[in-house]
């Protein structure tokens, strides 16, 4: 099977979707001729023409707002926000409009859009190229929120997102674009070409939104993770020798609660990890759900490991990033609790 980087997988998902469905339109800042600052849309304008892949003005609200109008018309726009840190100007259009259009019009108008954006830190991008705003979307009824962790999933999930009849926020952990980064920033990253999840089949396939994947079977403790933190958790498990069951959520909303509950009932312990700031992060929802649904099985409090409650700093990137040492410590503490 061909191996692809995550960038290639994402590009391939759009390519496949554009080839199959004329209604799929791709645009965003620097997305057209140049192919995006991360090159995710490279070649699409040449292949499908300027009508279907083009540069947008620097206006995130305009990009998402116009996409909503296109979706109401009957197209299926898949737009890019250059960094998740720049999604806020579009937040009103996403929250007040895209998320509620079907509901408020009782299916008269719908909004099948995908808003793609690179997320997460680890590239010395400072506070405006590092954020993980997923919890700001999971609180909003009417949205779906997806965070792939590897090329195989990224392609299948993105095609599913494009085909989904409702708005999907698609967060791409940029630190994973080229390989499965595990938080050991001093080590070179294995490229996707050397990783089995870099295997990306040609042509059309989907991964259903709302289904988690177990990345490591284990019996001692359940780790709930997504995106980059899946690899950090794997490293932490390996380094502590703790037999963790690592669940890659893939879709945060709808959430695969069944998979989570089954695992925690088995292990009796749970550690939640994410890169976003701790307070009111998506980990809070996960911890709340786990204790609600597994209370009588829990042998220790659900622990959360997350970015600190500060803006993402530049120089102290690795002190901020919840790397394998911090996750490992939480695993040990949870086992000892």
């Amino acid at each position: 099977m061909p191996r692809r980087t995550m960038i290639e997988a994402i590009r391939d998902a759009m390519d496949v979707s554009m080839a199959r469905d004329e209604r799929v339109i791709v645009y965003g800042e620097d997305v057209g001729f140049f192919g995006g600052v991360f090159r995710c849309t490279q070649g699409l304008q040449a292949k499908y023409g300027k009508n279907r892949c083009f540069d947008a003005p620097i206006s995130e609200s305009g990009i998402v707002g116009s996409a909503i109008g296109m979706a109401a018309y009957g197209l299926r726009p898949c737009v890019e926000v250059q960094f998740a840190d720049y999604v806020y100007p579009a937040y009103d259009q996403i929250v007040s409009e895209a998320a509620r259009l079907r509901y408020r019009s009782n299916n008269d108008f719908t909004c099948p859009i995908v808003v793609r954006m690179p997320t997460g830190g680890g590239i010395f991008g400072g506070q405006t190229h590092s954020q993980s705003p997923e919890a700001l979307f999971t609180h909003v009824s009417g949205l779906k929120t997806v965070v792939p962790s590897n090329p195989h999933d990224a392609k299948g999930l993105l095609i599913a997102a494009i085909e989904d009849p409702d708005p999907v926020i698609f967060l791409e952990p940029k630190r994973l674009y080229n390989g499965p980064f595990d938080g050991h920033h001093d080590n070179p990253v294995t490229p996707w070409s050397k990783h089995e999840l870099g295997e990306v089949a040609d042509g059309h396939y989907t991964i259903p939104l709302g289904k988690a994947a177990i990345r490591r079977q284990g019996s001692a403790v359940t780790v709930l993770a997504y995106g980059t933190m899946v690899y950090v958790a794997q490293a932490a498990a390996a380094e502590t020798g703790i037999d963790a069951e690592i669940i890659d959520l893939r879709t945060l909303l709808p959430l695969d609660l069944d998979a989570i509950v089954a695992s925690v009932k088995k292990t009796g312990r749970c550690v939640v990890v994410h890169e976003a700031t701790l307070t009111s992060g998506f980990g809070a929802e996960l911890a709340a759900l786990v204790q609600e649904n597994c209370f009588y099985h829990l042998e220790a409090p659900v622990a959360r490991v997350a970015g600190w409650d500060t803006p993402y700093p530049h120089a102290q990137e690795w002190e901020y990033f919840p790397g394998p040492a911090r996750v490992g410590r939480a695993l040990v503490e949870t086992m000892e609790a």
Partner: protein
Amino acid sequence: MADAGMLRFHVPEPEVRPGGTPDFSNVTIPKAGSVPRPEVNVDPRTIRDMAFSIIRVLNRAGEAVGPWAGLLTDEELLEGLRHMMTLRSFDARMQMAQRQGKTSFYMQHLGEEAVSCAFRKALQPGDMNFPTYRQAGLLIADGYPMVAMMNQIYSNEADPLKGRQLPIMYSSKEHGFFSISGNLATQYIQAVGWAMASAISNDSRIAAAWIGDGSTAESDFHAALVFASTYKAPVVLNVVNNQWAISTFQGIARGGSGTFAARGLGFGIPSLRVDGNDYLAVHAVAKWAIERARRNLGPTLVEYVTYRVGAHSSSDDPSAYRPKAESDAWPLGDPIIRLKNHLIHKQVWTEQRHIQAEAEILETVIAAQKEAESHGTLHAGGKPSTRDMFEGVYAETPPHLRRQRQQAGV
């Protein structure tokens, strides 16, 4: 230096406040028929002045004059009159229903009926409006059933929106009426996106965006102008300047530009101002702008100069912030009376037939109201189910919402 350089803060104020005498002497009203009608493919740079004038057709004598006149037949004009009268009657009844506690909220069009009623008649089937809450004339003039509107207003069991939306936030794809949002200005850029989609699809349908004077200050207004200008989207960008945004006079949103149409000049978009209380002028300008869109000439910005005669909404009392008689002093008159006078002048209408028509229309509205009320009002009779509340959040209800619905016992 210190004194000469002392800065002062400037806050614009309306000419008068409650207690004062209404004064519109600052509003320059060009004579009907005096503004030329350029070709639709005119170079926008040559018509910048039109953003500072007012296109008018009906003069004080009730005659239709000048280059923008002559587009509508007598039948069409009579139909337009009926639409406006229907909207006014509908408003009066629904306003009263709100006062009677039959619903929570209402917003009237009093004085602004010509804008949406005349515009609708210039569109083709399939075109799409992205309206605000003050363009119900688009529905009335397109024959959308009044009963359906009332069912929505009452949030009753027959409400097409299942009780989910605030009263008057209608939606009808079939009638080219995009779901109204309570959030101002958001729909303006969506209209441009819809128009872009139509162009991308090599369709022939065009979009119309709607916004109020006050809401042009919102950022989405800018996004819309940028996208419309860059992609030459087939869209008509309508600004309804009814002088007020709740308690705030239009000078706060407009600032030093003189007019709202002027905003288009910064984007190379042809920008016209029109007498919004003149059914014929509104229709003629709408036709012009719509033709431009349809002929791939790109967007047009149109400012409708009108006056919000009623309160902002059923929650508002304008006597706190503007003189009571201000609407009487409004120099552009009442759109229904002006069209009526024109038709009388043309001898196709009489005072008597007008009174008769008023009564007939009222009867139709009352009949519709009866029917709607048979399906319930907000606090009495049939209402949408709790189950309706849980549906339509997504195409398919996801597990967490199914669990919540079960918890709610429905």
